[in-house]
């Protein structure tokens, strides 16, 4: 599954120019138009300790602080996405704590998902799908910020390597090597979780 392409809105670039010219109403409209996009990225990549609204505000702060550097060469949404991703990455780097995920800490639904996966049975229940997403996010939190961001984009959001390259600015080989190593770590953790359940 690939993430839906961001629809380019030509009016956004015009709004950005007006906002740069101190047009307050244009700046407000710009914030309102970009809010869903920024919030989607913030929700997917924010550290636990940070409130999503606070992080979104930080992202908008950076957007406006650098708005004069926007050349118009790419759609504004792409430019904003990159700023949002980098702001989240910096926030993740500031978070030192990487909580361990133990079998005893799993919720009932998460436990059911792990057991079904181990038995190669499908997890069809919507609650189990949500639990699978939560568990995947908790496991991702154990990784380094960059690895976490990368696998969230690739494996949870279903972005292609090229889309990740556009959003992060990393080169393709770095993305592939990093993803390979991070997945290997996560497989090990999942295996440990299963072993913990058998004891």
């Amino acid at each position, binding site marked *: 599954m690939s993430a839906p392409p961001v629809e380019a809105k030509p009016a956004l670039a015009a709004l950005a120019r007006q906002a740069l010219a101190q047009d307050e109403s244009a700046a407000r409209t710009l914030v309102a138009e970009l809010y869903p996009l920024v919030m989607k990225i913030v929700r997917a990549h924010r550290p636990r300790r940070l409130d999503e609204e606070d992080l979104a505000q930080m992202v908008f702060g950076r957007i*406006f602080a650098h708005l004069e550097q926007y050349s118009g060469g790419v759609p504004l949404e792409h430019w904003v996405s990159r700023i949002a991703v980098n702001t989240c990455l910096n926030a993740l780097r500031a978070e030192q704590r990487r909580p361990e995920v133990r079998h005893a800490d799993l919720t009932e639904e998460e436990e059911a998902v792990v057991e079904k996966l181990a038995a190669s049975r499908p997890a069809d229940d919507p609650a189990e799908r949500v639990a699978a997403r939560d*568990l995947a996010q908790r496991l991702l939190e154990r990784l380094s910020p960059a690895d976490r961001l990368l696998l969230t984009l690739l494996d949870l959001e279903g972005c292609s390597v090229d889309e990740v390259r556009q959003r992060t600015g990393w080169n393709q080989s770095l993305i592939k090597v990093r993803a390979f190593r991070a997945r290997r770590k996560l497989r090990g953790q999942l295996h440990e979780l299963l072993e913990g359940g058998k004891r």
Partner: protein
Amino acid sequence: MKPDLWDQLTRVARQAPAEPNPEMPLGFDTRVLATMPQAVADEDSLDLLRLLRRALACAAVLMLISLTVRFAVGTPGPANELAYIEQAVQLAWTP
């Protein structure tokens, strides 16, 4: 072949219902605009900090290079050392 649990987990996770599009809370745009000058100032000071950090790193590298060069040039090699000794002996014996 062992099943790839991570791959299976993320395949199930991607089928989870998407969260509804978030609505902008009332006053969020006002808060963003109110903190804008502060955000710009913060970014400026961050840029300055990054510049200072780079300048410090460059200065440290230059200092190391200059110390290395100075040490290499200033330390007499074995040939120089012999010449010094010879000169000293000659001076001592010269009336």
